[in-house]
């Protein structure tokens, strides 16, 4: 238990002057309990999604986040809903973190009307614009320049907000990331590049994809921190620090050392390119939820029974949400032609057989 009491100090890629580094000795406070609850909800949601997929209620690509919950939750604890987040396809929990509901999430996963994208986006394309969540992107790497662009707009609009652009270790090799980082540094954009290093890009271990897997050192002219991404508190501190830093100085990189328990997506058993021992070792030693549970118990912020109750509630909440989501109907067929444009100009658009299916775009 002892080892949970202190967060690992972050590694630093280069000297950052004049801003104090995150202090790893900060103790958990009352607010650790929401961490437990929020991560439990996320975990439960992802496990339920797995079942729904197997029951063929979810189709296509579905990328689960269990194991990485501390990143989403720690980050949210450090920022406000006016700060923006953008991520890749592994987006369900980021959406919850932004205040999205379980019903919206499950309905989207099942392609229903009540989904956060009305069923049109699916697993990879969750959005919550009213809480500055910009998706949910399917093309590896693309969300990073997009996130830098959001930060560009924040700065242009003279807001004091920042953008967190999240990407994986596989995405970290994408050229557009270097291009966007260079411009962000030239223009002092308030953007934090959050590399969620779960050590695999699909079936490829980081060292097979990157000559230098020290992702926090990537932009040599931009400072980077390597953070224990299984430790909510460490993540929170790093994000708080980063937010302050980038508002004054321009971009920085946070590399979150984390892990995904599930395979890459539902077609990947996730056990051919890594050993079961590796997975179970991390579950036992570094699980983010267990870490918080132990912290809470050690500091007597709640009892074991109380936490069990929380878990029960969470389970019920998830089950209820699924039931509710299932009641939501499929999108109305007229949705086929909605949102092609925000201003359709009265254009006529066609279905597969244009003589029988067409619509005037509003």
């Amino acid at each position, binding site marked *: 238990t002892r080892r949970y009491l202190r967060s690992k100090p972050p590694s630093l890629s280069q000297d950052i002057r004049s801003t104090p580094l995150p202090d790893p000795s900060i103790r958990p406070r009352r607010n650790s309990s929401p961490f437990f609850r929020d991560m439990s909800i996320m975990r439960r949601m992802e496990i339920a999604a797995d079942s729904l997929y197997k029951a063929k209620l979810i189709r296509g690509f579905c990328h689960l986040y269990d194991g990485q919950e501390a990143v989403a939750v720690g980050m949210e604890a450090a920022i406000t809903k006016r700060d*923006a987040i*953008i991520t890749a396809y592994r987006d369900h929990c980021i959406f919850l973190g932004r205040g999205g509901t379980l019903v919206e999430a499950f309905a989207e996963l099942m392609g229903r009307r009540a989904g956060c*994208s*009305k*069923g*049109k*986006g699916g697993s990879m*394309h969750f*959005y*919550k*614009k009213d809480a500055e969540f*910009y*998706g*949910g*992107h*399917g*093309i590896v790497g*693309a969300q*990073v*320049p*997009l*996130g*830098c*662009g*959001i*930060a*560009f*707009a*924040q700065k*242009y*609009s003279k807001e004091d907000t920042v953008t967190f652009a999240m990407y994986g270790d596989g995405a970290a090799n994408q*050229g*557009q990331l*270097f*291009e*966007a980082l*260079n*411009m962000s540094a*030239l*223009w002092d954009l308030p953007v934090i590049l959050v590399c969620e290093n779960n050590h695999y890009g699909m079936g490829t271990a980081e060292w097979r994809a990157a000559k230098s897997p020290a992702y926090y050192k990537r932009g040599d002219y931009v400072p980077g921190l390597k953070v224990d991404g299984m430790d909510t508190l460490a993540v929170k501190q790093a994000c708080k620090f980063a937010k302050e830093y980038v508002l004054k100085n321009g971009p920085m990189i946070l590399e979150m050392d984390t892990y995904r328990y599930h395979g890459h997506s539902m077609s990947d058993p996730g056990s051919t390119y890594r050993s079961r021992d590796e997975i179970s070792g991390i579950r036992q030693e570094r699980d983010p939820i267990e870490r918080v549970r132990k912290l809470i118990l050690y500091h007597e912020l709640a009892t074991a029974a109380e936490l069990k109750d929380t878990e029960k509630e969470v389970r019920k909440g998830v089950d209820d949400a699924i039931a509710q989501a299932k009641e939501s109907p499929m999108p109305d067929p007229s*949705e086929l032609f*909605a*949102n*092609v*444009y*925000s*201003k359709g*100009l*009265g*254009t*006529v*658009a066609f279905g597969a057989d*244009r003589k029988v299916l067409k619509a005037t775009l509003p």
Partner: protein
Amino acid sequence: KEITVRDALNSALDEEMAADPKVFLMGEEVGEYQGAYKISRGLLEKYGPDRIRDTPITEAGFTGIGVGAAYYGLKPVVEFMTFNFAMQAIDHIINSAAKSNYMSAGQITVPIVFRGPNGAAAGVAAQHSHCFAAWYASCPGLKVLAPYSSEDARGLLKAAIRDPDPVVFLENELLYGESFPVSADALDSNFCLPIGKAKIEREGKNVTITAFSKMVGYALEAAEILSKDGISAEVINLRSIRPLDRDAITSSVKKTSRLVTVEEGFPQHGIGAEICTVVNEECFDYLDAPVERIAGADVPMAYAANLERMSVPQVDDIVRAAKRACYRSVPVA
């Protein structure tokens, strides 16, 4: 009054930037250099480096940044030095810009303009001469405009900037320096042309000629020549490739019963192919002759002047095709 297409574009940018502080221009050499083709001349001085943003030569990165800024609500105008280089960034134009409104069920709007010279210029060979009109215009979520005259350039660029959706705006380097008469109306800062509407540049009754961008000028020249032979050609300046103004085309063909399509791009899956198909679908029974397709030669663009000339339509080609459509006998070269 006459103004050049360059000045038309410049004034449109200037006015829209003056009217809406959310509009900004980004791209290579748009600022201190005043634009590789001087479209943004004077704007850096007027609007400063925050709104006239010079970028490194990193199209994928800056296009992504532009699209992200549009997600947030700004109205970026992204200049590509030429559209050939936009291939490095096309994933952002298609996947990040065109599809986001739909995928988010309307939450994310993407008010952005991608503009720059498209297609053939003079003596710049294969990698710098590609016409991308058909590629972009095949994609739902995008609007694709291609101005010909100064009035087009002003009215369509202003419309593009004001439009809440992503617009691909295809200019033509060889037209930048050309002057066209413009009406007083068109010089007003409120002037704007509708997106999705073609313009009948010249009325006629024997044959319809569709064209866009530089080829409109050639089509008009051809019409002039045809008129001397007693053939009255109607010239349609498409202006908008997506949405395509099917009504304007079919109404004209219903009148003339003959159609020649003209474009500089490659023929296969091109603009002419779509127009021919639309006419087939919507006014098959009116056609008195096969549609004649005039297009760029189906080869990469060569540098040598003689081959280059053979690679793009000439006025003669249009005249000959129109005569064929009208069943005039023509000697085969």
